């Protein structure tokens, strides 16, 4: 019998609504799964990694069992009293620990905030709870979201891929993707700044959605790159992701950049198919670009065959379902996405990290210091890990008065050009008139733990196929598109114009339906046995 924690959020919510299951049963099922697969939560002082640790997922930093139980009981009580619960009533979800939640530790996976208990709750979390969802706890991420593997978390053991625990989960929403993949919570709230929802979703074989910038409020999201950060859903299937976006999207008086564009019901029309939609394939997404340290040049490498094949197979399925596939769509500035991102995100990150000074909250050096500057230096020196330090150094450098024109202003121009690429192919009166682009999500499938970590530049290039959507502010969705030769999930990505989430869901759902009977669909993450 399928356990409750393996059901989709839609199915689970329906069963709870019609009395087949109680919210507390769903909670107990999720907690049992956590107990079975998660192992010990991340801590600042983990000691040695045991063999058992290496076989576990370690998605969580903080389990909020009491809060969850109170919420689940409240849902059951409402149901018993005949009240109409929210659309996600009783569905357990997890929250990337970059969102603040009142009364819970909100750590950003950094020593800097290890002792920080937030006095308020982030808007998207509050909206999930208002929709009846039950927060299970806070899940791990790269420190301050700065990474693509979760290895940089100050809270160790870091998450491990449920499909193969010797592999990374991706990042930075790695705890989210792992928790969803392993059935530890049907949904998770993540954030995407260069690909931080879509890349781990691809690595862990789940659906991840980076909505249009401003579609979901950032209030309560501890900022990384404020002009890029997007909260969004991770879920096991497309419909669940749409349900979750329904709950969290919309304007927020507390976030001036949260747009007032009306939120449609993303599940309406999700089964309507793709007939007549124009879906583009771009050769600029079928090659990889890396920076060569020795030659200081960008060099091209081919996309791995398995990944290319998965995208082509998806194009065929969508074509079979009635979509018009448009080939050879030029996206010439894709290759500059990472270099421009390196500059813009670091400038914003360095500024956003200014507030962590040991004065008001969070870590403060235990050493005796004789002046304020020494307190700042020691506090920040001791509490920030290598990634925040690198990003501060680079951000301060490229925004300095004498370099800003050369780097920061230049990067902003590149960002406009990237936006221009998308504008022109989505232009309804342009040459391509695309409804969406179909691309691979990642350059590789989940890589082995330790393989890339330490090379910050190479790690950053893991986001090269996702980052352009963040630059442009457009929505992107990653969904499972098969398994590679080693049995690891492959992610395929859909990118669309501003506020086209509904049509991305429709296309993704069509692909999901077309591949329902594919053999790879029945594969399960190894940790589930």
């Amino acid at each position, binding site marked *: 019998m399928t356990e409750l924690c393996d059901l989709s959020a839609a199915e689970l919510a329906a069963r709870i609504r019609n009395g087949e299951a109680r919210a507390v049963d769903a909670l107990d099922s999720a907690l049992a799964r956590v107990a079975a697969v998660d192992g010990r939560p991340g801590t600042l002082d983990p000691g040695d990694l045991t063999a058992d640790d290496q076989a576990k997922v370690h998605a969580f930093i903080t389990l909020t069992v009491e809060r969850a139980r109170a919420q689940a009981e409240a849902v059951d009580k409402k149901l018993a009293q005949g009240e109409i619960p929210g659309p996600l009533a009783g569905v357990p979800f997890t929250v990337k620990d970059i*969102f*603040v939640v009142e009364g819970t530790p*909100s750590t*950003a996976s950094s020593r800097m*905030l290890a002792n*920080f208990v*937030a*006095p*308020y709750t*982030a808007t998207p979390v509050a909206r999930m709870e208002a929709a009846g969802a039950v927060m299970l706890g806070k899940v791990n991420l790269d420190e301050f979201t700065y990474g693509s593997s979760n290895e940089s978390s100050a809270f160790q053991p870091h998450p491990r891929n449920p499909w193969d625990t010797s592999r990374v989960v991706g990042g930075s929403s790695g705890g989210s993707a792992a928790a969803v993949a392993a059935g530890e919570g049907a949904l998770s709230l993540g954030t995407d700044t260069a690909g931080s929802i879509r890349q781990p979703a691809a690595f862990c074989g789940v659906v991840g959605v980076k909505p249009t910038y401003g579609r979901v409020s*950032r*209030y*309560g*999201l*501890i*900022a990384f*790159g*404020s*002009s890029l950060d997007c909260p969004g859903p991770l879920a096991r299937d497309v419909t669940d992701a749409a349900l979750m976006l329904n709950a969290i999207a919309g304007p927020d*008086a*507390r*976030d*001036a*950049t949260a747009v007032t564009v009306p939120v449609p019901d993303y599940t309406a029309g999700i089964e309507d198919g793709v007939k007549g939609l124009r879906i583009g394939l771009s050769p600029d997404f079928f090659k990889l670009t890396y920076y060569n340290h020795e030659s200081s040049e960008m060099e091209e490498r081919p996309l791995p065959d398995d990944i290319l094949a998965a995208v082509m197979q998806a194009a065929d399925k969508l074509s079979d379902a009635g979509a018009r596939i448009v080939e050879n769509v030029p996206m010439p500035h894709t290759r500059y996405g990472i270099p421009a991102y390196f500059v813009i995100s670091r*400038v*914003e990150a*360095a*500024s956003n*990290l*200014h*507030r*962590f*000074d040991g*004065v*008001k*909250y969070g870590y403060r050096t235990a050493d005796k210091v004789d002046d*304020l500057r020494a307190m*700042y230096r020691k506090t920040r020196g001791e509490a920030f890990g290598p990634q925040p330090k690198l990003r501060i150094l680079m951000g*301060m450098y490229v*925004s*300095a*008065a004498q370099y*800003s024109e050369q780097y*920061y202003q230049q990067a902003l121009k590149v960002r406009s050009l990237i936006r221009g690429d998308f504008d022109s192919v989505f232009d309804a009166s342009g040459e391509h008139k695309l409804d969406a682009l179909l691309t691979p999500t990642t350059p590789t499938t989940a890589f082995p733990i330790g393989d890339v970590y330490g090379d910050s530049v190479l790690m950053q290039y893991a986001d090269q196929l996702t980052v352009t959507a963040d630059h442009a502010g457009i929505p992107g969705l990653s969904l499972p598109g098969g398994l590679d030769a080693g049995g690891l999930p492959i992610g395929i990505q859909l990118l669309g114009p501003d506020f086209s989430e509904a049509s991305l869901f429709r296309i993704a759902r069509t692909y999901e339906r077309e591949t329902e009977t594919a053999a790879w669909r029945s594969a399960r993450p190894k940790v589930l046995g």
Partner: protein
Amino acid sequence: MTEYEAIIGLETHIQLNTETKIFCGCKADSWDDAPNTNICPVCSGLPGSLPAPNRAVVEKAVRLAHAMNADIQTESYFDRKNYFYPDLPKGYQITQYDKSIARGGHMDVPMPDGSTRRVGIHKLHMEEDAGKTRNEKGRRLIDFNRCGVPLIEMVTGPDIRSADEAAEYLIRLRQLLRWLDISEADMEKAHLRADANVSIRVKGETVFNTKTEIKNVNSIEGVRAAVEKEIARQIQAYESGEKIEAWTLDWDENTQTLRKMRSKETEADYRYFKEPDLLAVHLDEEWLSGLLADFPELPLARRLRFIEQYGLPEYDANILTSERSLSDYFEAAVAAYGGDAKRVSNWMMNDVLKLLNERGLEAGALKLTAEGLADIIKLVDANTVNTPTGKSLIEKAHDSGKTPQEIVESEGLAQVSDDSAIRDIARQVIAANPDNVEKYRGGKDSLIGWFVGQVMRESGGKADPNMTRAVLEELLKG
């Protein structure tokens, strides 16, 4: 002897009198509140919090920019100014840098000698205030109440030429800020803060020499005194061949002295960049025209008009336009009175202002209406009441809320101008004071005033003083 001139620029920070702070719903004014009681996640810079702009701040900035003859920018941006300080909780200040809400501008400041100084405006932008740091017993205490209080920073060009001109500019700015309800503009409460950049040069030269910056002055008189001192110091230094260095000077109000705070280091790099948490401030046509519709006549223009239209002396016009409701009151009273505006001005300057000052009120709070004041003057003109009674009616009308006519009737204050009634009282007074009658008749004419006073007293103040005098003179002749 070499003549020098001073080159002065003023950097002002104006605290706006909005209800709430610039980016959150906390109360903006914390003057009477305990430290750290008007704070929230936004203004205290908690992780994850975001600024939500207050429209009222933009509106006040637009009105000030318009009054300063600046070019209002329909699209402006906020920027981050990054630096570390314990009372700056985000580690950056949200301000406007290269695309601020207004460009250019000037104010023509009338000087006491009748000349006018045009003071150019170099910068006018919105920003948030930081908190306050206090050192106490070796501890550094921080009050975040002031974080996020809305400010307009306004910087003049190097156009001011003396300490008195600097003070006049600030007096006119304060008047304007209150006139437009932008700020309480009280320097003692730091609603209006002014730092002065001062340099000197030999008169006739066009170079700009090294300047010093005077900080922490909290009154207009303080600015005048501090700038005067600094000009004198620089002249003396220059004449004795010392180099003038770019110091920052701290004004000590108690000792009236300037103290060197620090030598100005090389300009800090604040790494300005556009605030990604806020959208551009876009002033659409409707919003802008709504803000500038019915823009009030400004104090300096009204002052000139009072001189021209009503023939008022400059002195009267200055005082009557010192505050907006006072000038409105004056004009309404003149209109209701219909006669000589100078006569209304005299009543305002002598009697109405006396009451306002005693009670600490503005004219807008008077219960005696401008029409009521006009009625009082008319009652006096018509000899219905005498002048002292008329003056007493101002306070009585304000305290009771009744009209002057009602008070005159209910208290029987109408002047006695009945010849026979006055004659009766005068006879009694003469009969009761034979000594003084004799002295008067012996040539001590000045005693007439004493006799008038006696009759006035006996009549309960109601006797017409002119008629009383005439009757007494007649009777005393014998």
